[in-house]
Structures are given as structure tokens and as C-alpha cells.
């Protein structure tokens, strides 16, 4: 096997429970985003755009959709003779076989996979953030600092810092303390969940961690604090630019809305750093004679004859005449019938919103930082006089 300098490992097994009905049947990284993408497209595209062409995708929760979506990795140019994209589910071994117990255990169980490429470095990623980042610059920094571990951090507002894992560093970026969700934060450098490890070092800590039966086998809780205690060279790499965790309904909605904001840093149209996706074979979308479009993102295959305002419309959506969609996310292959009114809502893929159904309510600002977004689950069909209130979620198994 050809040697690789750096292998990426993408943790895509999380359930994303806070997304409720949306992640009931698909893993969070497979969640549709931005009109034609899935959340995982950002990480996969960043990886290949950074010149890293070998990536293991660790799946566990509801993997079918994700496995099918990634396939042989071709849409991301990851169908390679040497390297490429690999789906790595938990598997049966000679003596044992078990689910991934934690993020660190997931990598531990795939030590053999990484070792095949004899990499110097391993990049650990998670599949639930929206951002564009050149990991090769982070790797350069890791080498420059002769670090054992480099953690990407982003400057967050001090009042929000207690929601994150915070890195306290020296002037040169060396981390002397890591605090998970500190009540009184000492710095505003929040971990982005992106790590580069020198592989031999990480392997040692993964094996030690596995032997510790009290460990939760988690990077944030066990590996990073353990390395820090042992005095390993750990550095914070400061990233600036758009980065958003889309782990909640409110943040998923916000991140989609950011795409409509010309002032936002997330510029998908930048040809130097394209985000790739598996493309649906759909014709261009059609805007009808009655349509009114005011600030929207619309993907292919749609038939739009209604009133669309400040919304993201995914592939293959039909909006009939007289329907109103405002401040909302309408996921693929949905049908919004005439007279329906949708505001501050997320409509799951394949749903049908019947005539005159009302979903969501207008809102001026978030309540305690959270928008009250109404959510209609995938495949749900609603008929009048149904009314879904702000913040309400319908569909899915009870």
C-alpha cells in the first residue's frame, strides 16, 4: 500500500437526537443542507480540497442512507486507486466484536485501517459542522510546532463560551488547560472538534485508553485531557471564518438562513473551494406564472408557483399557486399545496403540506437564543385544518 502522509477519520456515527424526527431514520451527517447538499459534504469536500485523499468514514447509527450517499466517493473525487473514501462500520473481530463505545474507541477499533497507510499524521473530523477549512494549513502548523496534537479552535463570544470546550493557551498557542463547558470561561477559544494527531502518539493513547475500563473512550473527555496531563505538546490552531455546529433545530435553521445573507462568510459559490455533493438527475427548476420570489435559494427539479420569501428550497420541491413559504427550509421532494402558509419551519423530505395547512408562526427574534421552528417530519402528510404551532414537531414514531 502506498504510504500516505495524513489519513482523515470522519466520525459520522452520532445520532443527533436534538434534531428529533429529522434524524429518526438517518444519521445527522446525511441531513440535507443548503438546497442540494448533505451536512457531510462540507467535511468531505474540505478534505479533498486540502489534498487529503484517504478518508475513513466511521458510521454506526442508521448508516444505510449515509453509506449509499457516499458510495465509492466519486462525487468528491474520492474514488482512488490508492486511498479514497471508506465506510468503516463496527465489525466482528476474531476475539471480540462490539459497537463503537465512544469517539476514541471508534478510532481504536480501526487502528489496522490507519496502519495500512503508515501515515505520519491522522486528522480526526466530525460530520456535523458547516464550514470551509483548509486542513493542510493546520497540518503545516502542527509540523511547525512539532506538536503531538493540534486542536482547531474558533473565537466565540465570551457569553457563549460556556457552551463549548474551551482551550486555555500560552502566547505561542500551546494548550495548558482544557475545560469542557466552563461556567466561568478563561478564554474564548472554542474547540471545533477537529484534531490532528501524530499517529504513533495517538495510537499509544488509544491503546492505553482502551485498557482503562473506567474511561468513556471519548476524545474530549479522555484522550485530550490524558495527553495534557502527561505533558504532551498540544497546540491550538486558530481558525477564522464561518463555522457552525448544526446540532439543534434552531442552529440547523440558522445555518440555512445564513446562506441567504450576503454579509455571511459562508460563500458556497467560491470556485476555489467548491463543495461537492452527489447530484440528482433533475431538470432545471421552473418558476411559474403566479410565482413571487423574494430572496431565496432554489435547487433543481422544482416547480414553484407560490410565494417564496427568504427560504431555502431543496431539489424536486413543488409549491403550488397561492401557497406562502417564508423564512423556512423545504427539504427535497416535498409538495406544498395551495393556500398553505409556512413560516419559520423546516419541512422534512417527501412531506406533503395539504391545502390551507398552517405550519409555524412569524418570529421577530429567538427566545433564549433559540428560534421556535416548527418541524414537519420526513414523509408526513398534513391536511387542513391542521395547524403546527411555533416550535412544534410532528411526525415520526411516537
Amino acid at each position, binding site marked *: 500500500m502506498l504510504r500516505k502522509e495524513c489519513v482523515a477519520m470522519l466520525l459520522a456515527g452520532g445520532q443527533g437526537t436534538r434534531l428529533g424526527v429529522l434524524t429518526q431514520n438517518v444519521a445527522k451527517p446525511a441531513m440535507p443542507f443548503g438546497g442540494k447538499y448533505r451536512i457531510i459534504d462540507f467535511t468531505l469536500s474540505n478534505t479533498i480540497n486540502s489534498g487529503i485523499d484517504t478518508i475513513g468514514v466511521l458510521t454506526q447509527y442508521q448508516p444505510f442512507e449515509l453509506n449509499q450517499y457516499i458510495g465509492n466517493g466519486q462525487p468528491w473525487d474520492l474514488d482512488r486507486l490508492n486511498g479514497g473514501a471508506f465506510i468503516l462500520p463496527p465489525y466482528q473481530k476474531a476475539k471480540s466484536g462490539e459497537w463503537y463505545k465512544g469517539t476514541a474507541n471508534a478510532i481504536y477499533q480501526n487502528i489496522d485501517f490507519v496502519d495500512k497507510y503508515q501515515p505520519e499524521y491522522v486528522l480526526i473530523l466530525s460530520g456535523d459542522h458547516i464550514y470551509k477549512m483548509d486542513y493542510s494549513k493546520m497540518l503545516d502548523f502542527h509540523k511547525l510546532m512539532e506538536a503531538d496534537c493540534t486542536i482547531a479552535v474558533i473565537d466565540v463570544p465570551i457569553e457563549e463560551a460556556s457552551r463549548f470546550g474551551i482551550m486555555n493557551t500560552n502566547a505561542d498557542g500551546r494548550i495548558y488547560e482544557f475545560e469542557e463547558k466552563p461556567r466561568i470561561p478563561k478564554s474564548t477559544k472554542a474547540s471545533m472538534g477537529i484534531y490532528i494527531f501524530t499517529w504513533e502518539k495517538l495510537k499509544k493513547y488509544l491503546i492505553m485508553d482502551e485498557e482503562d475500563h473506567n474511561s468513556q473512550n471519548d476524545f474530549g473527555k479522555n484522550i485530550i485531557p490524558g495527553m495534557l496531563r502527561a505533558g504532551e505538546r498540544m497546540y491550538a490552531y486558530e481558525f477564522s471564518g464561518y463555522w457552525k455546529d448544526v446540532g439543534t433545530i434552531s442552529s440547523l435553521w440558522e445555518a440555512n438562513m445564513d446562506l441567504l445573507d450576503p454579509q455571511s462568510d459562508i460563500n458556497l459559490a467560491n470556485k476555489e473551494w467548491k463543495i461537492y455533493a452527489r447530484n440528482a438527475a433533475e431538470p432545471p427548476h*421552473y*418558476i411559474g406564472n403566479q410565482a413571487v420570489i423574494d430572496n431565496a435559494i432554489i435547487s433543481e427539479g422544482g416547480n414553484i408557483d407560490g410565494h417564496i420569501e427568504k427560504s431555502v428550497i431543496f431539489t424536486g420541491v413543488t409549491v403550488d399557486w397561492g401557497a406562502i413559504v417564508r423564512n423556512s427550509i423545504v427539504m427535497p421532494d416535498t409538495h406544498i399545496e395551495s393556500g398553505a402558509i409556512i413560516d419559520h419551519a423546516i419541512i422534512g423530505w417527501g412531506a406533503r403540506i395539504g391545502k390551507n395547512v398552517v405550519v409555524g408562526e412569524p418570529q421577530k427574534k429567538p427566545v433564549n437564543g433559540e428560534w421556535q421552528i416548527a418541524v414537519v417530519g420526513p414523509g408526513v402528510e398534513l391536511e387542513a385544518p391542521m395547524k403546527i404551532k411555533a416550535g412544534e414537531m410532528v411526525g415520526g414514531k411516537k
Partner: protein
Amino acid sequence: MNTKMMSVLFASGNESKLNELTIHRTTASLPFGGRYRLVDFALSNLVNSNITRIGIITRNNYSSLMDHIRMGRDWDLNRKNSGIAVFPPFVLNTSREVYKGKIEAIYTILDYIKKSPEDYVVVSNCNIAANIDFVKVLATHLEKKADVTVLCHTARINSSRRVIIKKDESGFIKDLHFEETPSDQDYLISLNIYIIKKDLLVEYVENAYSRGLVDFEKDILFKEVENGRLYAYELQGYAAIVDDVKTYYAESMKLLERGVREQLFDGENKIYTKVKDSVPTVYGSSCKVINSLIADGCVINGTVENSILFRNVRIKEGAVVRNSIIMEDGVVMEKSTLAYAITDKHVIIRENRQISGFLTYPIVIVKNKVV
């Protein structure tokens, strides 16, 4: 079904009547329908009918076609044991020039055809936009024990040199002839797509070539009519023959009808094209868009009516585009007005320009021009 088909496509033809639109490209690579090129329809129909051995014969200016098709992956044609073969022009020893008609063209790739294991051949031009299931056509071909099945549809003659078919009640062809003048009356018109047994095609072509004949329709099919084994398979639904600027414009505009789009795109058999990873289209607050077909990657801040925008088109504030076709990467700057125009790829219309053609004579603006 075990009977296997292969296909031979002609990338060129009718370039002279498509004028400026085919200066830089083959008819096959002519952009159509917002995100496609005409060859996408032929390739997708073939692949959807399990035909994966496809030879495309080119004549000139075929670099755009090679760039579009690459290894055929976007149509799932990057196969180990078949796939797509693009044949650059082959100069025959006898004439010292590029082939003159389809007979010579097929003759240049006769070895490829003979070596292929399939028993039947779909022979087709690349200037047709339709959704065709060749499995059904072949079943009929076999059932009728036809020598050649000619695909056709009922339409008005909207351009010159259409092949007109007269058939009997059983569907066999009684007469074939060219019609030169447009007519408002409905005729049964050949789409110049044929299914034929491979051995018979080889025989036809070898015989005709040795007699110095060049025209597949006139020199082979017209003569075969008297044997009574040519079957007319009539396609239902939308089918467009694109062979001059007027039909290009008219057939494009038909895509604004929902029924036409449903027939072409909404069935099980999808139309595939080269993936370009464009972002979804962004509509600004000042835009006004109605009755238009809009591809990915556009940014629209002006007015667009009854038009087709290809990928990555920019319509700036105050610009008005009506009854027009704007191909990929076109830009219409502030306060310009465009009507009944076809702008080729990378055309920029500067500020405050007024450009208008007419319904029956749309103005064509050549690739890469700045107006």
C-alpha cells in the same frame, strides 16, 4: 430480454443551418434545456435501455463533445466491458477527405461494429430531445420481423428536409421522401433513429459504400421501402428535432410547458448530464421571475420572463430578460433589456443595452462576445 443492442451515434449534421450556435461545436454538444447538451438525451435513453456500447462518430469541432463526455461516467458509461467510444474523423484512402455521409461514416468504424458482440444496433442522430425506451422499440421490431424500424412522430414540418413517412395499417412503411417546405399540416416525420440487425447494417453499408453511395436515408432506406420490411414506430409524447436556429428556439421554449417537461424528465428514465457541482440558484430581493426554467448556479436580481437560463447566469438589478435563452455563464448587466435572444456561453451584455430579435427570428449572440 437476452437480445442485446449497441449503438452508433452521429455527432454532427445540420451544422450549417444552426449557424453561429455550432461554430465552435458539434450538434451533439449544443446546449439545450437549461443544463443539458443534445447528446445527453441520446446517451441517457440508450443507458436507460441497457445499451452500454456506444460509438459516437464525429466530423469536426468535436473538442466540446470530448470535454462533455470525458470517460462517460456521468451516464454510467465508464464500463469495463463496453462503454463509450468517441471516433475522431477518419480519412478514407479512396477520397482523401472526411466522410461525406452516414454510409461513409459507418464504414469507417465497421471493424468496431463487427467486433461488438451485440446483435442489434440503434443508429441515431444526436439532434433529438426525447425520452425513448429502446427495449420497447426492439420488442416491436422483433415482433414485426422488420428489417429496419424507423422511429417517428406526428408533427408539423417546422424545418426543411424532414423525412416524411407513409405507412399501411400494419405499420409498415409504404413511402419515404424528403419534404423541403414547412407546413402547418401534421405529418408522420422520421426522427432519423433506427433499429437494425447488426449483420444487415453491415451488409447495407458495405454494398452501398462499394457503389460510392453516401446518404443513408436516400441511398439505402428509400430503396428498401419496396421490400416492405421497414416498420414505422411512432413515439408518443414530446420529441424535438433540432436542426436550425428557429427550431432550436421553438423547441426550447416548449420546455416551459409543464406537460412537456413531465414527458421528458419526470418518468422513471432520467436524463443525465455532466455534473458541474454548481450551487443552487440565488434569488435576490429585487428579482421578478415568472414562467422560466432556471438551472443551478444563477444569481438573479433582475426581471426574467418566459426564458431559459442555463447554469451560472447572472441577471443584475434592473436588467430585463424576456423570451430569451441565456446559456452558461452569461451575464446581463444593470438596466439592459434582452428579448427574443439566444446568447451563447460566456456572453456578457453590458449596462443599458437594448437587444431584441423576433419570435420567428431570434437574434443569436456568439460565444464569448461582450456586447
